[in-house]
């Protein structure tokens, strides 16, 4: 017969083994401070900003974003090119182990294009971020006024 404390120890060992074998749980990725601006009409563009943290012991990579409100969504970076500012697609955004990446104005953003209907302050936009290790992470992004500078 096993003693109760032995069962607990065995369970703990199994848990540690599972963790070691599969270091990136969806729970390792957390998204905070998400926000996006309202659009001026149907068919407009918006950018979503957020902080993505990775509590895991291995780096993870954001490979895609989808949202039912828009025709297209991609991770972009605003960069300077010969005195012009332009946006470039970032197909792979690495979130370092134990670190975080912030998507903020003038840097990284989730570009949300061809938004079917006008987004108004107070709306919430569901978004699914796909990571190489953590898989799909669902978030809700609050819409703030076009003239706002943060999540409010």
């Amino acid at each position, binding site marked *: 017969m096993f003693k109760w404390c032995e069962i607990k120890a065995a369970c703990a060992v199994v848990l540690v083994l599972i963790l070691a074998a599969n270091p990136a749980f969806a729970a390792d990725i957390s998204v905070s401070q998400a926000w996006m601006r309202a659009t001026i009409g149907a068919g407009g563009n918006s950018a979503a900003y957020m902080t993505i943290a990775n509590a895991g012991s291995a780096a993870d990579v954001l490979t895609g974003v989808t949202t039912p409100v828009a025709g297209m969504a991609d991770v972009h970076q605003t960069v300077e090119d*010969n005195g012009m500012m332009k946006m470039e697609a970032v197909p792979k955004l690495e979130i370092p182990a134990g670190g975080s990446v912030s998507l903020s104005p003038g840097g990284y953003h989730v570009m949300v294009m061809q938004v079917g209907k006008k987004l108004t302050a107070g709306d919430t936009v569901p978004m699914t971020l796909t990571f190489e290790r953590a898989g799909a992470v669902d978030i809700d992004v609050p819409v703030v006024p076009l003239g706002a500078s943060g999540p409010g």
Partner: protein
Amino acid sequence: MSRIRLILWALVAFAVAAVSTITLYRGQNPALQVTVVDGRIKPFSLIGPGNQLITNAHFRGKWMLLFFGYTHCPDICPTTMLTIASVLNDLGDEAVKLQPIFITIDPERDSPALLKDYLANFDSRILGLGGDEQRVAEAAEAFGVFYRKQPIDNSDGDYYMDHSTALYLVDPDGRLARPYVPDVPPGELAEKLRVRFRTFEEK
């Protein structure tokens, strides 16, 4: 004799290399090259929110702070408009001396009426100007502003605009005071403007 010739040609080669390097360098920085005629900015003539013709002469006696952008711009343009809105607030009573102007570089989608609605989200004191391709191209050229259409893959004709994002300050006499990079903290920009206002008034 041949040695002198060698040295001479070496000097010529050096000069050619130097000049072409300078020219190339200039070519890579097309922005911020504002055309100046008799010390003043080149005239522009655009269409205002009530479909009226508005030229630079309209703003004589006022400071102009100009920015070129487009309403479908999701990141840089709203951020810069927020900066301008906050500069207007920081300026308080002195804000009446300044006319902030947003000139669209996407006249295909930005009608003067749409510009007005868009800018009201930041501060209705910002004036939106547009017009046809030709008028916009002339105004942009006068300020050395570069822009180009960037088609989006698999989007059925949708596009972004790549564009210069400096802010241009023009004094009440129509002289370019200076371009600013857009990421100046608003508080700092308001203070810089106050100093410029004062220097100009004491002149």
